[in-house]
């Protein structure tokens, strides 16, 4: 009944002149990885991270768009495979948008190749009784794979406007703007069950779609095959990891860092600021605050800009390339068995690999996992073992300079520790793991424009997020040093730091700073190692402890937001001793066997 009333009210409303209390609100919905965020970006001019794997968007984004003479509010939603039955947390977010009064019009974005699945979703969206438009995106890819769709017949069947689109090239956007005014409630027969709807979608697809056996996308298909088969896939993985090491670990962490740290900062910025400070700042206290041992410029800026930034930037670039190529989900096939032992399934490879970019963002991405137990384990493992890009920077910078064995030892210990903790957590925690069912995106050649935009935004984000914390941390260190607390901290930490871990006493303060941001602590280690105060074994032990720490304050806050304060504190309470005792054990073993790196 209520649907009927809504329909009538719409019919009364004049079509041309629209006076609304608020702008027309348009929700973009659709299956994962069909390009909703690209359409959103094209319409609003606002960039939302776009990648080539399901689950890049896990929260809603709003933006304004001009459609004709009218302003619209656009809502980008997480991808959904279903809106009813068993749905994941990100799918629930989208369903809530559709249920609420937040959306006046729904634009369903679909992958033109997958019409059958798209229609199954259309059937479910129809149940929300909102006027809608169907966008068949990536029509060029469908065409290349020999798929053609009779749009007129489909329009006649569903009685809604249908727009063919290649969103990344902007093709079909004017048509979508026009179509918004004609949005209508779809004509979908009522289906008592999901399988009835599937049958309907199947038959409708058979009627309007032709698939020829001739595909022009054979290069992509050959690559897709090669990356998922063990015989070719594992060597490809090795090559990818080696390329990552060369580009980030050697070019970023050594060549660029040397250029910036010794060249730009050591050669110009720091001497110049010291010279200026000596000349113009008469108060020694302020002078030290800026350019002293714990100076904002000589320490804070040098750490964040010269040591961490080059690696973060090179990492984001290559990482964006991997994201957009569709490669990462294919790794899930290889990891499924290992992850299952830790109470997860192969799908968890997505948040884990994303964690290498930023653990805080990855913690949010755990929403794509099926059960609460899986999410908790993934969040725990992210915080425990996955070094984020900024920290990877310092690890590669320090250990890359020592030896490959040193680097391999660190990763072996950290991965081993993650496995043990994951294995235990899987047994201790209540609940189930979900089935491993993962959609593999097609392999695509990344678009340079998207790659550069994404990298630029991530670097800006790093500068905005991390640099202030580096400066705050440095200021804190300066104050602690002035009031004599650093000496006290070093003394208090001595039993653990010098005794258990076998590190120089000065590492205490660095470990303390590691609590604030572990890459900040690692940058401290970087300088210590650079000045020859750390032996190979000490560097490996110190970095292992630092890697196992909770990544940063932001990550902790995100854990609290996603899982509650109690869980956050428990995770912190588990991780800290694990980190210290692992370091102690490693120190003991390395020394007992007389290992030198």
């Amino acid at each position: 009944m209520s649907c009927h009333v809504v329909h009538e009210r719409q019919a009364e409303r004049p079509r041309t002149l629209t006076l609304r209390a608020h702008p027309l609100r348009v929700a973009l919905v659709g299956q994962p990885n069909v390009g909703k965020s690209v359409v959103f970006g094209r319409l609003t001019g606002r960039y939302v991270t776009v990648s080539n794997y399901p689950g890049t968007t896990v929260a809603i984004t709003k933006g304004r768009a001009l459609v004709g003479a009218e302003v619209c509010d656009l809502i980008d939603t997480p991808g959904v495979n279903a809106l009813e039955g068993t749905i994941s947390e990100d799918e629930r977010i989208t369903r809530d948008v559709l249920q609420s009064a937040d959306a006046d019009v729904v634009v369903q974005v679909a992958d033109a190749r997958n019409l059958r699945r798209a229609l199954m979703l259309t059937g479910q969206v129809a149940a929300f009784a909102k006027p809608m438009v169907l966008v068949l995106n990536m029509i060029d890819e469908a065409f290349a794979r020999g798929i053609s769709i009779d749009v007129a017949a489909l329009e006649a069947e569903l009685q809604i406007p249908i727009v063919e689109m290649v969103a990344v090239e902007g093709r079909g956007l004017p048509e979508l703007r026009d179509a918004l005014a004609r949005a209508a409630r779809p004509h979908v027969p009522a289906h008592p069950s999901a399988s009835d709807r599937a049958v309907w979608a199947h038959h409708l697809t058979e009627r309007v779609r032709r698939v020829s056996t001739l595909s022009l996308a054979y290069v992509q298909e050959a690559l897709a095959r090669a990356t998922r088969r063990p015989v070719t896939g594992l060597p490809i993985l090795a090559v990818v990891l080696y390329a990552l090491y060369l580009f980030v670990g050697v070019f970023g962490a050594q060549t660029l860092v040397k250029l910036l740290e010794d060249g730009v900062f050591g050669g110009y910025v720091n001497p110049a600021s010291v010279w200026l400070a000596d000349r113009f700042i008469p108060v020694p206290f302020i002078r030290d605050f800026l350019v002293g041992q714990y100076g904002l410029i000589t320490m804070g800026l040098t750490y964040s800009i010269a040591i961490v930034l080059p690696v973060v930037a090179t990492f984001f670039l290559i990482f964006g390339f991997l994201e957009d190529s569709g490669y990462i989900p294919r790794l899930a096939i290889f990891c499924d068995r290992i992850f299952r032992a830790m109470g997860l399934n192969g799908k968890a490879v997505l948040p884990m690999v994303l964690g290498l970019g930023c653990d805080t963002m990855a913690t949010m991405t755990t929403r794509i996992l099926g059960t609460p137990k899986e999410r908790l384990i993934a969040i725990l493992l992210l915080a425990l073992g996955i070094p984020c890009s900024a920290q990877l920077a310092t690890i590669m910078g320090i250990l890359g300079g020592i030896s490959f064995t040193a680097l391999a030892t660190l990763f072996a210990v950290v991965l081993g520790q993650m496995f043990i903790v994951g294995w235990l957590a899987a047994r201790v925690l209540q609940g189930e793991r979900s089935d491993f069912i993962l959609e593999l995106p097609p392999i695509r050649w990344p678009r340079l424009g998207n790659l550069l935009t994404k990298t630029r935004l991530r670097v800006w984000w790093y500068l905005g997020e991390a640099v202030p914390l580096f400066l705050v941390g440095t200021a804190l260190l300066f104050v602690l040093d002035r009031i004599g607390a650093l000496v006290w901290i070093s003394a208090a930490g001595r039993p653990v730091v010098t005794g258990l871990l076998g590190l120089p006493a000065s590492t205490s303060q660095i470990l303390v700073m590691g609590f604030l941001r572990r890459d900040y602590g690692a940058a401290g280690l970087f300088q210590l190692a650079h000045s020859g105060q750390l032996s190979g074994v000490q560097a490996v032990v110190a970095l292992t402890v630092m890697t196992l720490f909770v990544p940063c304050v932001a990550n902790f806050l995100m854990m609290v937001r996603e899982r509650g304060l109690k869980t956050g504190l428990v995770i912190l309470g588990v991780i800290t001793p694990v980190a210290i005792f692992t370091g102690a054990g490693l120190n003991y073993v390395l020394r007992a066997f007389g290992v030198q790196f």
Partner: protein
Amino acid sequence: MSSVHLAFSSDRRPVSALREGTRGVVVEVRAHAEGRTDRLLALGVTPGASIIVLQTFPGIVLLCDQTELAIERQVADAIFVRSQESRS
């Protein structure tokens, strides 16, 4: 649908028992407590869908209509197809 189901019940086999390259049509997705059927349904694995087994190790990968799916063996056990051995 039930007639289709009966007519081919003699050569219906679970996906987990199929060799690489096998083509077939899904005839049944066996119900499971934790919403396995729902999720497969949402991804297009429904009776009537045509599939090709692309790979069987280390995980099973199948092409269902135009969707490439990686699934674990347990899940593959629950999907029954009427198979046609690949002649290529």
